[in-house]
């Protein structure tokens, strides 16, 4: 019953937050309306999200987000320096392949997004069998270390959260 009423509970939560951010007012009426939306809209869009995302350890999400945020700021600075000061010829771009252990689409998406959002790396493609990500690095003198860092720093954590 709950499953049928709330096909994607986390989505419902997100929507409630989004509505409250939108109306910009903490009032009971708004919350009630937000909850109505949180129920109705996922029901309406449920056909387009047929399978369900499982979260094994949702509690670890904030820590992960903090880590990513920190990495974004740090990497931004690095990339800025590269852009500003590194001569074109000294730039060593590289394609790297990241073998995936994650299986859930949502988890892979999270990983890919993290890679893209942290400057210097960019998720370009998924392999045909879904077991590897193609990542482009702006400046990677040592591509293998990048692969290792991504796998340990992000994939591992995401695996804990999702699977």
């Amino acid at each position, binding site marked *: 019953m709950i499953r049928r009423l709330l096909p994607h509970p986390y*989505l419902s939560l*997100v*929507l409630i937050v*989004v*509505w409250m951010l*939108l*109306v910009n007012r903490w*009032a*009971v*009426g708004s919350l*009630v309306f937000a909850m109505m*939306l949180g129920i109705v*809209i*996922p029901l*309406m*869009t449920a*056909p*387009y*999200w*047929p*399978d369900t995302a499982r979260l094994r350890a949702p509690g670890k999400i904030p820590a992960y987000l903090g880590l990513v945020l920190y990495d974004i700021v740090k990497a931004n600075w690095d990339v800025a320096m590269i852009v500003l000061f590194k001569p074109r010829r000294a730039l060593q771009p590289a394609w790297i392949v990241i073998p*995936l252990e*994650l*299986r*859930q*689409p*949502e988890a*892979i*998406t999270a990983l*890919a*997004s993290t890679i893209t959002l942290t400057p210097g790396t960019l*998720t370009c*493609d*998924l*392999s*045909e*069998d*879904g*077991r590897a990500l193609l990542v482009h690095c702006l400046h990677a003198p040592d591509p293998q270390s990048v692969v290792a860092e991504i796998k340990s720093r992000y994939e591992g954590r995401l695996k804990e959260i999702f699977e």
Partner: protein
Amino acid sequence: MSPALIAALPFVGALLPGLLIRSGRDVAAMSCAAATFVALLGLCLHIPEVMAGEVVTARFDWLPSLGLNASFRIDGLGLLFGILILGIGLLIIAYARFYLSRHDPVGVFYTYLMLFQGAMMGIVLSDNILLLLIFWELTSLSSFLLIGYWKHLPEGRQGARMALTVTGLGGLAMIAGMLILGHIVGSYEIGDILNAREAIQASPLYLPALLLILLGAFTKSAQFPFHFWLPHAMAAPTPVSAYLHSATMVKAGLFLMARLWPVLSGTPEWFYIVATTGLITMVLAALIGMFRDDLKSLLAFSTVSHLGLITMLLGFGTEAAAVAAVFHIINHATFKAALFMTAGIIDHEAGTRSIARLGGLRKLMPITFVIGTIAALSMAGIPPLNGFISKEMMLEEATHTVWQGNAHLISVMATIGAVFSVCYSLRFIWHVFFGPERDDYPHKPHDPDFGLWFSPALLVVLVVLIGLAPQFFAGWLVEASAAAVTGAHPHPHLALWHGVNTALLLSLAATVGGVLLLVLHPRLLALRNALWRPDAKAIFDATTLSALQLAHRVTERFSNGSMARAFAAFCLTVILCGFWAFLSGNYAGAVRPMLPIQPIPLIGWVLLMVATGCMVAFHRIRLLALVLVAIIGLIVSGCFVYLSAPDLALTQISVEVVTVILLLLALNFLPKRTILESRDGKRGFDAFIATLTGLGFGALSYVVMRSDFAMPSIANYMLETSYKLGGGHNVVNVILVDFRGYDTFGEITVLGIAALAIFALTETLLAGASGRRLRNWVHEERRAGARHPLLLVVITRLILPITLVVGVYIFLRGHNLPGGGFVAGLIVSIALVSQYMASGFGWAQERNRVPYHAMIGAGVTCAAVTGLGAWFAGYPFLTSTFGYVELPGLEKFELASAMGFDLGVFLCVVGAVMLALNSLSRIARQAGETVNAEPMDINPSLFKGDR
């Protein structure tokens, strides 16, 4: 019987053959004859009154403001022509019954004939010149139909068109002439006009009116130089020729001259134009007629000649000449109709009308011989036949007439004309009936049945009787009609014998000369064949052909299907007219101060300029052009934000993205590049026009922005009352859903219609040739495998619901903040589009439960019903109301009826956008697109175990 009824009877008769044709040819003919007979009877009943000098009138108001009324009159002239038309008409109906073959559609023939008869009766009985004009043109039309009656004959088609063109030309001139005449008199009633001789002849417009009216009369009566159409009208069946082209229609011109004789004649202009034209026509046509080989052609030219004779008489402007003219009208009608019927009999029985192939018919066709000979002798003016008398009168008048101080010119010329006339008349007799019998006639000739010779025989009897006792048989009619023509009361004494006078001597000379010419005919013919002579038909054909080609060229120039030409004309027109309008007014100068230019708007301006320039430079790379469209749209939206129009910015940017998506969908099937086709010169010209237009419009907008409202804008009221009376803080939204909600109602209808049109077009395309072409479609471009990338699909699963929430927010807050039903609809559409882009339209569509058609219908209905709701409160359509509602436990919120309206807008927008996308997607699927089973290409969670 009322004159109106007499004029109407033939038209009633015209309906009968159509209704009765299934009963057979005889019934059709009988019914027409009956109608004609009744009309004739009705007319004759008025003879006593007319003889007593009365004018019988009937009048119905038709279009009094114009002066066009259905007024009819019977006076002597009308009586004369009426008797001719109906009397000869009766004979023609009988004659035609036997003349037409069983293959000819007789019902059609009689209908046309009766239409014509009615039109003629209308002309002669009209008491209003505008009404007369109507009947006048009707004769042209019905004669067009009759000449073209034998549709298989090309000469029939050409002759009919020629007749219509020439008489149509005259008719149009006459319209102008009659309108001028009516303008001078102040009335179009003939009764009034006939009393206004002084006013007319004193008017400066007299000459134009005269010329225009005479142009009509001359073309109708085939006067030089419009004489050429009549012989070509001989393609009509002989009964038609006999009726229209000898006895009636061609006399309409004469009738008109006679009708207006009291007010138009008597001036030098009249004399020189009319008499001279008549004289030339008489002589020239007789000369041509002498050499014609075709019997009907000979008769046609003789008709032209005789019409010229009568015209000349009318042109003399004296009462005696008018009497002669009237009398000759009668005589000519009798003998010429008889002659045409004779020619028709010969054609019918011998199978040819060519004089060269005839001869010696005297013994084979004795009855025809007698009839034809008597009629032809009358035409030649041989006593004691009626033609002689009127010709004598003509010569008599001619001797009294002085032309430019020359006392003999006219009589000499008239005599020469008479010589020719005698010649062709005798030739008709001699070359057809006399000489040896031949053995090479197309058919073995013999006299026809009684039905066919009865009518001409009757006419010939009249020829003889009038000749022998003119005063008894025709005097009264001539007197009455001459009285009507001249307006005086002449008492003509018609007699066979006037004693020996100049006219008789001239007549004698003419007869002798005619015989002499007949003897010399073969040599003259050879001489004439050796001479160059203008071929009127060739000239006419060349004229019409070049007119046709000219018209074609002009038409091509003004509609050659070139869009660029159309647009160039459009731009130039707008620019020239706009400049002219501006410069011809008073410009008070720029009054409003300008806003200072800030750096960021300046950068925006640079962006816009460069992007627009790139657009022109790169437009042939179509995808790039679309990217540039998006950039321009972005900057324009930014401009709206900067200049205090947040709602505009929202709408502009969301519309732009949907537009780009539609364009991308279409571009998938269109060529990806535009070929460079225009030459440099053309591009230069286009650039010139574009620059001119841009300068003009830019300047206009500058002037507008620097000017002030001449009077306070109505927008101030809206700002004041938007919240108080409209219940919304967002004035733009209140204007949209309340002040000008009706506009918005129209606007969403436009959107809905657009989607319907797109859908309908798609279906048509798919069902037609395009559908077949699409089934074999091969995409030009190499395609990647990334159909539904995982990343996109997963993110969209979040984006879609979030965007929907945003849509709800924008929808609800629109009345007070930027937003509203329209933008919300677009946002929801965009959200759905993102879903379709992620997982494909087909896949997503299968999960959609709302038909888009229904959304559009429901949207329009919802808006309309919200609007109509106001009726129940007694208010006009779209009157909105609002209130503040408080539900327990929740804070107060506003509920405006305009929200119902906005909901309609919302539904319509979503339905329309989605239906359009649906259509494009259907095209793609027709072109071999498949529908994916899974929402994403690669779903690693579905792959179990190791690879």
